[in-house]
């Protein structure tokens, strides 16, 4: 049975913070490039949904049999994340949802588990999503090197764009970076030793094991998409494997996104796949508590694969964060009191189809599409005669206000009445858009966000953002 990748997707937050801006805030020497920063309405779950939406574009979500979510920054310690992602992506109920957590190589572990589920016949298509929003300590180089992002791969046996040809796994009880359940920031002990024995030694062992198992030779490999502690380590790694560090190593995205934790290797790999040709050998390598290495060979189907926004698309949507203060506000590092509305898990559960799936009603009598799931039609007052429809994901701003009485962060909140392409009217906060750019008739698309944390739990839902930034 040929098992491999049917589709891919990625998500990189629109906000980028130059490392020199961060360094200037602390009086530290600047590092080159910039990092991606998740906004205050984003977390590992919302970014995973975005990557999932990108990956599943044009694919019927009801054909997916499972979601494996990999993260080290799950919003909940108790309560799963993959089920939330599945709900937002409008997947079936009779699917397998599982969280692969705590290890930096959780993404590749989830991939391997997805492969095994398909190989065993227990699932046909499994969506693997890796996402992380890690915090480096303030006034540290980690804070500059880290970045936020998510990547998604749909594994199946259909219309493969890349076949999984082999893997090799190393397990190692090695204390590299860690974060106890009470720690807010990632901790490190000795980076040099971590580089040499945690990253280099384990990754090398996995890659050598993979080469021996698959009999692929260095010259036959197009690109290696590998995780890193710091990007210089990749040069040494390439040399040890007999690879050309400048031609055969994939762009580590260090200068544009940063180290995105357990989603990093997948994000680098998705970006590599996005630019690959048919018939190429691509290697994915991830370290953390050991290492995983996987060999994929791209197929002819890749040449006709429909365009994804992926890493390049999201990198092109860029807004610079002007200050460290805003980063600190986005990541909720300041002590500002945040007032949340009251919330009820009871109401949210009852509303799940309207809020998470963003379903509306289409009147069977007059055809009007409306939101939320009303009982009596706005158009003809017919009662309970509707078809449940998943509302259009794009529309136009009908009217709006930039509301300073509902501020999120330091700017007013653009608040919009949107007319969706199917005619439904919805009320949405706009995100990822400077307030002065909002205008009537602006084309917008839906984006999944953390709306508020009222009730002490996460209230997720949809906002809108400009289609073109």
């Amino acid at each position, binding site marked *: 049975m040929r098992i491999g990748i049917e589709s891919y997707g990625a998500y990189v937050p629109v906000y980028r913070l130059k490392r020199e801006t961060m360094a200037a805030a602390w009086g530290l020497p600047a590092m080159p490039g910039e990092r991606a920063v998740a906004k205050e309405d984003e977390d590992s779950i919302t970014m995973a949904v975005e990557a999932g939406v990108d990956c599943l574009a044009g694919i019927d979500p009801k054909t997916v049999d499972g979601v494996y979510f990999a993260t080290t920054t799950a919003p909940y310690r108790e309560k799963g994340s993959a089920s939330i992602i599945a709900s937002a992506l409008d997947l079936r109920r009779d699917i397998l949802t599982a969280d692969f957590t705590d290890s930096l190589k959780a993404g590749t572990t989830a991939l391997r588990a997805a492969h095994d589920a398909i190989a065993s016949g227990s699932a046909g298509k499994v969506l693997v999503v890796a996402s992380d929003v890690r915090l480096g300590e303030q006034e540290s180089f980690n804070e500059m090197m880290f970045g936020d992002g998510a990547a998604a791969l749909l594994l199946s046996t259909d219309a493969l764009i890349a076949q999984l040809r082999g893997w090799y796994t190393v397990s190692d009880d090695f204390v590299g970076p860690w974060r106890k359940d009470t720690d807010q920031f990632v901790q490190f002990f000795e980076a040099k030793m971590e580089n040499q024995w945690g990253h280099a030694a384990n990754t090398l062992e996995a890659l050598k094991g993979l080469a021996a198992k698959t009999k692929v030779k260095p010259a036959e490999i197009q690109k290696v998409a590998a995780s890193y502690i710091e990007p210089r380590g990749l040069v040494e790694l390439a040399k040890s494997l007999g690879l050309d560090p400048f031609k055969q190593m994939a762009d580590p995205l260090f200068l544009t996104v940063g180290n995105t934790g357990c989603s990093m290797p997948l994000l680098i790999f998705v970006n590599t796949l996005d630019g690959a040709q048919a018939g190429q050998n691509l290697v994915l390598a991830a370290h953390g508590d050991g290492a995983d290495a996987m060999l994929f060979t791209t197929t002819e189907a890749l040449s006709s694969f429909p365009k994804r926004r992926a890493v390049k698309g999201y990198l092109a949507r860029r807004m610079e964060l002007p200050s460290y203060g805003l980063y600190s506000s986005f990541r909720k590092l300041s002590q500002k009191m945040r007032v949340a509305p009251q919330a009820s898990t009871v*109401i949210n559960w009852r509303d799940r189809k309207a809020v998470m799936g963003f379903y509306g009603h289409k009147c069977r009598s007059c055809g009007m599409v409306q939101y939320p799931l009303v009982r009596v039609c706005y158009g003809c007052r017919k009662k309970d005669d509707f078809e449940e429809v998943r509302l259009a994901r794009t529309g136009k701003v009908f009217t709006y206000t930039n509301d300073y009485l509902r501020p999120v962060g330091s700017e007013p909140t653009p608040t919009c009445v949107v007319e969706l392409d199917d005619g439904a009217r919805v009320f949405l906060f706009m995100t990822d858009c400077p307030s002065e750019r909002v205008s009537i008739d602006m084309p917008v698309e839906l984006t999944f966000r953390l709306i508020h944390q009222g009730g002490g739990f996460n209230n997720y839902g949809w906002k809108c953002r400009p289609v073109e930034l």
Partner: protein
Amino acid sequence: MESIRDKVAVIGVGYTKFGELWDKSVEDLLVEAVYEAYEDAGVGPEAIDAAWVGIQYPFTGLAGTTLADPLKLYGIPITHVENFCASGMDAFRNACMAVASGVHDVVIAAGVEKITDQGSRGLPGGGGAVSMTNVWPSAPGMFALAASRCFKVYGWNKETLAHVAVKNHEHGAHHPKAHFRRPVKIEDVINAPLISSPLGRLDCCAVSDGAAALILTTPERAKAFKHKDDFVRVKANAIAVYTGQPWYQPGFDFTHFPATEMAAKRAYEQAGIKDPAKELDLVECHDCFTVTELLNVQDLGLCPRGQAGDFVREGNTRHGGSIPVNVSGGLKCFGHPIGATGCRMLVEITKQLQGRADGLQVKDAKLGLAHNLGGPYSVCSVTILGRNDT
């Protein structure tokens, strides 16, 4: 369907100063307003057989006890009425119905709100967990959604709106009970910090505390009370409830308020008014935000749709103009303790018709209209009062 016309008389009115009344409680406000109305009518608590009190926020008070306890009005029917910003005028409507039906003889309609106890940054939230689909912008945000659309459709701009604020502050500066007592200039309004774009601070009414009360009976009985010759007659009273979530209604245009149009139409029918701009002598209209007044002026039929900007700019709605709007200063300058506002407007119209306005007096006023619009253009209440000889 029978009309309320000439079935109810206003025989006494009272109201507190509006403003940030840090040193006053709900009890203080209700006692001051109602005892002023007792005094005006020449009655005491023993004369009252029923009462209605308009309050929007649960923190101001719940149930009839909010009125019963301060006044020690025990044992009679008292009902708390809530209908957004029209709560006070809906309390008045319920009181009118009781008198007109003959079930009660002398009743109180009152309204009160004590907002500043919750802090003074905009209106407080409603409280309670609600559906995430039941999401609202802030109060200025609701009307800013209309303003943005009007800018596009009618070609209005910040200056168009500013004329409303300038006029209402000019009026309110003369009123001893108004929250603000100072005029403002066009450029002050245009340049004030934004609250909800395009509305700036001076496009918004004040967040105020206050109370107002009216004592009602039948015109026949009114002759036995202090204002036996100059009591005021209720000519019309209508309320229209539209959607509380206009953003979900496909096709809602945000450039007119259906609730105002529907309530006004019914009130004009009751009062037999054909041309409101000519027949009415003054209007107290809901101007929680400058754009609200412009749209209501159109929807009340005082000028054609889309022309309120010019109509107001040309001075037609100023004191001395063809149809003065908000000579009290309106919500904008007089203040807006939600539940009290409707009753406060009716107190103003009553005193104007009696020729004893506390602020600017409209000369020889015979017929006056009070209008509230609550929520996101959801609940509209219109009352028309007439001089005893009308």
